[in-house]
């Protein structure tokens, strides 16, 4: 039987992990909320961000924390490029556009994994020395590792910043307007295409932030994105597509449920707890917790 402090440890870790899941998920939610596109290459965006952070650590001896803004900027550009080069074509499909988006990004995911394998080899990498990576704080009997703690705090800060962006800035209003009625915004001088591209850039940038943080304590290889992506999809759906706050809440819930299930059931069944919670929620709220679409 586990002691109270063990259970407390598990819950604290679950909370921190959940906040990081939320950060991974919010980019996906944003993009979907904006233009109804599910990016099936989301995990690969995360993978690229992790490799970029690793590369900067290896090549320029940059600590992941320092590399964060660079990686975010790089992913912003990459996200916008993916929109302009691929997704905008997918959205032009008059028919089946939902499936076209899914499968064109599915193809992109395979392509990116192949490219990563080709150029970077499938070997497992990790950043050996990072400022955060080796520290852990002991609060009584509970250990709070620095990377996860900082990651969780950054996640909260990012959500706050995102909220400010959407509610207080013109760009944020443009995003809301475009989401409401993408065709009408042209009438008020908003270029739908530009908003979409920036939206993708923003979504990718958030994944980039998550990737840079993860890279300081996680291993990196071409297939690393898969499990995170699956959790991200469930998190976004649980919170409600298009709801930024939903992604935050759902991320925390997923992290906690996953940790708790690993204790109650054999650990390899922990994802079942998360999936069961999702199904239970949508049974009563078909649009997730806070979804409006």
């Amino acid at each position, binding site marked *: 039987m*586990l*002691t109270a402090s*063990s259970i407390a*440890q*598990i819950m604290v*870790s*679950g909370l921190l*992990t959940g906040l990081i*899941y939320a950060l991974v998920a919010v980019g996906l939610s944003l993009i979907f909320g904006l233009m109804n596109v599910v990016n099936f290459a989301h995990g690969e965006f995360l993978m690229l961000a992790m490799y970029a952070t690793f590369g900067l650590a290896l090549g320029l001896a940059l600590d992941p924390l320092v590399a964060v803004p660079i990686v975010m900027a790089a992913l912003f550009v990459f996200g916008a490029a993916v929109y302009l080069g691929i997704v905008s074509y997918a959205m032009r499909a008059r028919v089946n556009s939902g499936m076209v988006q899914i499968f064109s990004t599915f193809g992109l995911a395979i392509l990116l994994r*192949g490219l990563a*394998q080709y150029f970077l*080899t*499938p*070997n*497992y*990498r*990790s950043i*050996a020395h990072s400022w955060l990576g*080796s520290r*852990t704080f*002991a609060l009584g009997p509970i*250990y709070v*590792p620095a990377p*996860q703690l900082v990651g969780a705090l950054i996640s909260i800060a990012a959500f706050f910043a995102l909220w400010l962006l959407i509610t207080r800035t013109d760009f944020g209003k443009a995003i809301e307007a475009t989401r409401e009625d993408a065709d009408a915004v042209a009438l008020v001088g908003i270029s739908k295409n530009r908003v979409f591209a920036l939206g993708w850039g923003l979504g990718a940038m958030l994944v980039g932030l998550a990737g840079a943080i993860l890279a300081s*304590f*996680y*291993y990196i*290889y*071409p*297939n*690393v994105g*898969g*499990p*995170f992506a699956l*959790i991200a999809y469930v998190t976004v759906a649980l919170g409600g597509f298009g709801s930024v706050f939903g992604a935050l809440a759902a991320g925390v819930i997923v992290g906690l449920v*996953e*940790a708790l299930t*690993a*204790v109650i059931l*054999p*650990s*390899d*069944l*922990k*994802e079942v707890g998360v999936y069961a919670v999702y199904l239970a929620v949508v049974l009563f709220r078909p649009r997730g917790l806070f979804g409006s679409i």
Partner: protein
Amino acid sequence: MNVTRRSVLLGSAAVMATMATRVRAAQPKEVAIGVLYPFSGPSAQVGVDAKFASETALDIINNRHDLDLPLAKSAGLPGLGGAKVRLVYADHQGDPQKGRAEAERLITQEKVCALIGTYYSSVAVTVSQTAERYGLPYMSADNSSPSLQRQGLKFFFRAAAHDEMFSKGMFDFYDWMRKKGTKIDTLALFHEDTIFGTDSSNAQLKFASERGYKVVADIKYHANSPSLTAEVTQLKAANADVLMPSSYTTDGILLVKTMAELGYKPKAIVAQAAGFSDKALFDAVGPQIQGLITRGSFSLDLAAKRPSVGAVNALFKARAGKDLNDNTSRELMALIILADAIDRAKSTDGEAIRKALVATDIPGTRTIMPWKRVKFDAQGQNEDADPVLLQYVKDKLVTIFPPQAAIAAPIWPMGA
């Protein structure tokens, strides 16, 4: 598995009887062997390393090397007039059906005379069945599931140990340590949920109950989980004398990092190799696992007594940039043993090679492995493939068990 040897024998006899009579061609210039590993997907690095190992073995077989290994001193296969071996690589992507499709392609289109591989035990099931149907040998280079040789196949051969033999080695070590006065009573198992983790933990549970060790935690986890905190917290709470992980590289790295983050320092770790024999893991978390013990098939420090070990390792390192390890050493050695059998068979006929494999009797000193010898039993398993236990000290894996192979005393507990 319910295949009876008789039914498969009847089946393959029928198959072979319907094969057109083979025209005994003039000595072939080239002998093809099919090599199946995962070259894409999550285990792609294994395939990449296996290719280096296979190419090194090919170099030894096809060219003259002054080493005391089968086929090293000659160029090509002398029994077939100096014919060179050609390797045909195929990617099975970890899928048993694709493994079978590639095996069939290699046999029918590339005309290989034998198959070797596959890392995944699930793929080995279908590939070995295919080899049986076509009447040519399948050499399991690095599959460790004990159930494979129990399928009752005539054409299945495995030169290296399987998980029961490896786990027995671990428990022999525990018994030996206990006799010397070390307290080892409780064990914590930590294993992933695929065939490898299941086989490993089953064997460990069996030996633990047979030999009087108490398993205080049996944590089965989902491979490639984003977080292992809950699992490690449970291990920490159990605080066993020995932590026994059966994990691949990714989970191994995460396990060690999580243990460090949660302040869990086990007294001892005895791992079932896999991730814990991968240089990438030691590059990532080496400093945190000083004193970790793992089972292994290969002792690099044997090079001090047996020059061929160092020489072959150098050949491999020149290609791969790292030393031979548990996997790559088995893959390399198995290929040489297979080629040696083809050479002794003096033929590319499947049945002839099979007979030559059955007749194999190579003393361990003529291999690069710490084995007693290579001799396949009735099921095709080499029961003399003695495993070793290695301990990670400074940045090397040092052999600590069995005593006749050990070059240093074990450091126990690992933090001492």
